[in-house]
């Protein structure tokens, strides 16, 4: 149900009041969002000297040094494919769980809360939990050893980053999927069954297509978050998994080369934009 809103000109006298109400939020957004981001983009066209100070004037020097450096190219590709891999694993694990939750009759609310509540816990805490599980003396290696299996290298490796990120991102994926399943009416599946479709066909022809919008949204969200995440790759990668986000931090805080950090930030935004474009195109096909 929507609330009736008194129509625009009934409140035309309230123009000044409207501005007053919006002024605080505009103020915060200008000083801590719009201005900094614009400034950051401008920063990517500056160049740092060896001492960490900035050269005068704006040019493409920092950009061209980045583009010419194979190190950054391989980092970009690694970021993208690890992001894609994490997205895929997250989807595969989340889909059956979300389907189960959306179909649950008993304790549905509790199940949803269980799936979503990890979001409310700091990424540092959850990643630390994974260090406890995956660490060399951790829970999983101990478990594997008790079955006489030699554990692979779980921490300070890409495998560890993928496992941790998957779990961190699952709530987002489940949320998106649940919103997609909302449209799924079980009578549709029953109708398909009466028309002679077996369980697999029902899934392939009815459930999957109807849940596609949720799948796409979840994938976009997870990919974008995976590409830009920093805490988990840093903690579980142990410095061995260099991604765009970790490099931005190192450049900004350790090397103090802000123009390079700014360029990499713009690069992440470009990856975002591209993902968004893909998402838009795919959504059109699915609709």
């Amino acid at each position, binding site marked *: 149900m929507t609330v009736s809103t008194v129509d625009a000109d009934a409140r035309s006298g309230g123009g000044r009041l409207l501005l007053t*109400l919006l002024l605080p939020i505009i103020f915060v957004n200008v000083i801590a969002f719009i201005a900094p981001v614009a400034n950051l983009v401008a920063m990517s066209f500056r160049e740092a000297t060896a001492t960490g100070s900035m050269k005068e004037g704006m040019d493409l020097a920092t950009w061209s040094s980045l583009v010419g450096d194979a190190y950054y190219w391989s980092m970009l590709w690694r970021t993208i494919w690890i992001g894609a891999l994490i997205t895929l694993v997250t989807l595969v694990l989340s889909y059956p769980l979300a389907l189960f939750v959306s179909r649950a009759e008993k304790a549905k609310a509790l199940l949803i809360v269980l799936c979503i509540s990890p979001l409310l816990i700091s990424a540092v805490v959850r990643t630390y939990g994974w260090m406890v599980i995956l660490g060399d003396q951790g829970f999983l290696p101990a478990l594997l050893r008790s079955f006489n299996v030699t554990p692979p290298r779980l921490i300070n490796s890409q495998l560890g980053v993928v496992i941790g990120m998957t779990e961190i991102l699952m709530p987002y994926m489940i949320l998106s999927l649940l919103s997609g399943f909302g449209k799924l009416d079980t009578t549709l599946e029953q109708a398909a069954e009466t028309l002679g479709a077996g369980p697999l066909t029902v899934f392939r022809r009815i459930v999957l297509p109807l849940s596609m919008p949720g799948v796409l949204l979840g994938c976009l969200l997870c990919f974008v978050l995976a590409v830009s995440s920093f805490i988990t790759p840093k903690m579980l990668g142990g410095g061995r998994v260099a991604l765009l986000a970790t490099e931005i931090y190192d450049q900004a805080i350790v090397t103090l080369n802000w123009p390079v950090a700014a360029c990499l930030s713009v690069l992440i935004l470009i990856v975002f934009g591209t993902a968004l474009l893909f998402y838009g195109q795919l959504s059109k096909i699915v609709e």
Partner: protein
Amino acid sequence: MPKISRGFHALCIASIMTFLLAPVILVFPISFSADAYVAWPPSAWSTRWYVALLHNEEMVTAFRNSLIIAACVTAITLIVAMPAAVALTRWNFLGRDALTSLFTAPLLLPSIVLGLAILVIFAGYGLVGSWPGVIIGHLVITLPYALRVLITGLSTMPAFVEDAAGTLGADPWRVFRRITLPLMTPALVASAALAFIVSFDEVVISLFIAGTQLKLLPVSLYHYVESWTDPLVAAVSALLVLGTLGIVLIVERAIGFGKAVSK
């Protein structure tokens, strides 16, 4: 469905659920480890890491700072987001949707980019490592959450009750105070809790703008993990999980109560 495949199905769901909750659950047993480093299974149980935590001055300070920051951020978030939400739902003006999108945009921006952007500009004004700097930095990401919850709360109010109050002679301010405000209490509680948790948990932006002077709990935890492998962090984590659970329960009661009122 045959029995075996149904059993297999249940097993799969249970394992995925376990996977999802494992890191949050496992910090509890580890936090009671008597060992000097994280190892499974612990050789003995003790509360030594909780005791150590109480005597760790940095953690205690960081915890206190984080609480203060989160409380300030929550208060300011409500003061700023509340009028904005009213304006964006009760006025019909050109560019309203664009403005709403703009105010939620900081959520879409990677926090690493946002953190860097704020660092670069705040550094010039000496705001890095300062209380106001950190509070403003957190506001950028708590506002979109609060705004969303408040807008939803305001636009799902029972139909026409505000109009009805108007026809009964209540001027706009009294409509707001007597009708709108009481009816959106659940949304206010929810957005306050969300703002508090988001601010308290925020690590990336804090990492950039809290500097080394202003200790914040997630940042201190992050740095501690970088250099130490003892279960101290597990003790902190366990406490944080319990704290979050407490807030969730409070909100659930507040909103459950609210639902009962508005039904």
